[in-house]
């Protein structure tokens, strides 16, 4: 089926070329990092993880989010998601590829990476994260690719794909739980040391991930002949809304526990993020932006009349994505490392080079998603499934 990715409109080629250019440019800066070390980043002795690991964490959520389509489809036989399932699985592949990319660029000695396999260490959560992420990648490649191939040949899906699909549903929960365990089991990092962190991770994943997926699907509808089931989209928007409500609720639980107990360790990080400590208020504008956009997205998503407005929906989803990204892609990591173990504040901000390397990984993910979505939409076009009524001549 890969050949379907080779034939496309000029716009498709320009987009692919643009992504390749970004990847090429980014790898130049990554070479620099390989030669000079992680000193080119804004990380420090006190904030020893930064933008890379934050993106990794956010994208694990995006990877896990496909399950919000796959689960209703397989467990509840919700047929209106039938045409979306493949996109959920392919999005997960792109997201896991980016996750692995962000891990690779973050480690100081990438050529020794296989030491994690050569000296397997079950007491390290990082070992388990490696296991579940790679497992999830393999599951989605196997299930997604095989089912699409069968669709193309008008064959029923083999039984084993169903077994693997069921497995991947449970597995999706595991990848984000294990990623939360990376953080929440560390003594002395109060912002992370909370039993609800894994639940928060899942809630924010299940709103932000499907939101990104839905945005990409809307874009796909614009540039291809694919047309998703309208009711399916409405249901997915509903799921996103519920997950965002739970996400906000879980965060408020943290706020209550910290401030009603009044224990300084529990309050410090939140105070640093939202008010600033010792004259350091670097993240305050971002966190309040997240609050405003998060609540704004709820106002636009909870009333059915606004949620079902297909013109408004992309905007509601976009501000939800920005809000959750600030919370998890900036606040979680920087707030976790501040205050430092010495009760001091160590400001962190990614450098330009760090951002370019991150852009390289994001472009790589976009390339993978583009190619996979291209194949999926071409197959759907070929089989005449989920098509716009009047098929335009382009493409």
């Amino acid at each position, binding site marked *: 089926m890969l050949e379907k990715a080779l034939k496309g409109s000029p716009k498709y080629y320009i987009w692919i070329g643009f992504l390749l250019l970004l990847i090429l440019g980014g790898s130049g800066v990554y070479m620099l990092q390989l030669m000079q*070390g992680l000193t080119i980043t804004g990380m420090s002795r006190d904030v*020893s993880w930064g933008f890379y690991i934050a993106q990794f964490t956010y994208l694990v959520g995006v990877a896990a989010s496909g399950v919000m389509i796959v689960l209703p489809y397989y467990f509840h036989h919700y047929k209106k998601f039938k045409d979306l399932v493949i996109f959920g699985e392919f999005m997960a592949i792109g997201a896991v590829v980016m996750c692995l990319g962000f891990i690779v660029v973050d*480690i100081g*000695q990438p050529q020794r990476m296989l030491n994690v396999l050569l000296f397997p260490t079950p007491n390290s959560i*990082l070992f388990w994260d490696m296991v579940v992420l790679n497992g999830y990648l393999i599951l989605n490649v196997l299930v997604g690719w095989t089912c699409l191939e069968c669709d193309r040949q008008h064959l029923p899906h083999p039984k084993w794909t169903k077994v693997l699909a069921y497995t991947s549903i449970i597995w999706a929960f595991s990848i984000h739980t294990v990623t939360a365990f990376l953080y929440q089991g*560390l003594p002395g990092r109060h912002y992370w040391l909370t039993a609800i962190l894994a639940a928060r991770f899942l809630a924010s994943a299940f709103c932000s991930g499907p939101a990104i997926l839905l945005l990409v699907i809307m874009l796909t509808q614009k540039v291809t002949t694919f047309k998703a089931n309208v009711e399916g989209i409405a249901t997915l928007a509903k799921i996103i809304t519920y997950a965002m409500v739970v996400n906000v609720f879980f965060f408020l639980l943290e706020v209550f526990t910290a401030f009603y107990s009044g224990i300084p360790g529990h309050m410090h990080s939140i105070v640093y993020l939202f008010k600033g400590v010792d004259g350091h208020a670097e993240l305050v504008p971002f966190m309040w932006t997240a609050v405003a956009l998060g609540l704004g997205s709820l106002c636009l998503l909870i009333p059915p009349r606004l949620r079902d407005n297909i013109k408004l929906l992309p905007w509601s989803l976009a501000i939800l994505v920005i809000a959750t990204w600030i919370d998890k892609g900036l606040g979680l990591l920087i707030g976790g490392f501040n205050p430092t173990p010495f009760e001091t504040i160590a400001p962190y901000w990614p450098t330009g080079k760090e951002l370019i390397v991150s852009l390289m990984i994001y472009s790589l993910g976009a390339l993978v998603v583009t190619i996979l979505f291209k194949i999926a939409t071409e197959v759907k076009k070929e089989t005449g499934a989920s098509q716009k009524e009047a098929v335009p001549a382009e493409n």
Partner: protein
Amino acid sequence: MNHTRRNFLKFAGLTAAGLCVASAGGALAVSGAGSAIRDDEKVLKAKRWAMVIDTKKVGTKETIAVLAKACHAAHNVPDIPGKQNIKWLWAAGFEEAFDQPNNYMDEGLEKREFPLLCNHCTNAPCVRVCPTQATYKRADGIVAMDYHRCIGCRYCMAGCPFGARSFNFMEPRLHLDLAALNKEFPTRMRGVVEKCNFCVERLAHGKQPACVEASQGALVFGDLSDPASEVRKVLREHYTIRRKPALGTEPGVYYII
């Protein structure tokens, strides 16, 4: 044709199996040799190494700087300016060190500086989180590191509640006086984590840790499991505290206040 292919596959399989056995045997032989600790009389041994610091004697930036200098010279620790610095032993105030602000402390204590270093915890979070066992616990209680196995993921730095670990963000040798290197101890490469190692390399040669030697009696080092040891004697005679005891890591560094 089929016949020869089968024979070829058999031969290839046997060769591969043989190679596996040979390399596994080699690995076993190496690990066997590596775990043997030199066994002559000079080696200082203990069941649980620990350190007691008399902060009344080393309680200023200047006195602690002497300890840090001895340590950093012994271990070729580079002097890197800025926040990507590396330190094995350094000075900090009461609140930074002990995480428990105390209003209206006596002035002496308020101004006192405390030497900070790796606590060589009994339940070390860094050992727990390391995905490659590059950070490991020795039988004598020392939390040691294999700089050649470390992949530089820095999980141990997030795990350590004492901020005892440093990462080589850049090439450390650029910030070392290569003429004044201690040839007895390796320099590190870029991209790995490092920290105080309780001077395992000196203990193996019958010497006390470098900071203890430079402290003129203010630092006492010994076997916590031996009731007759110097550290146990000092602990019996003085009131001591440890850093962040509530976290349950059981630090091996005690402070006389």
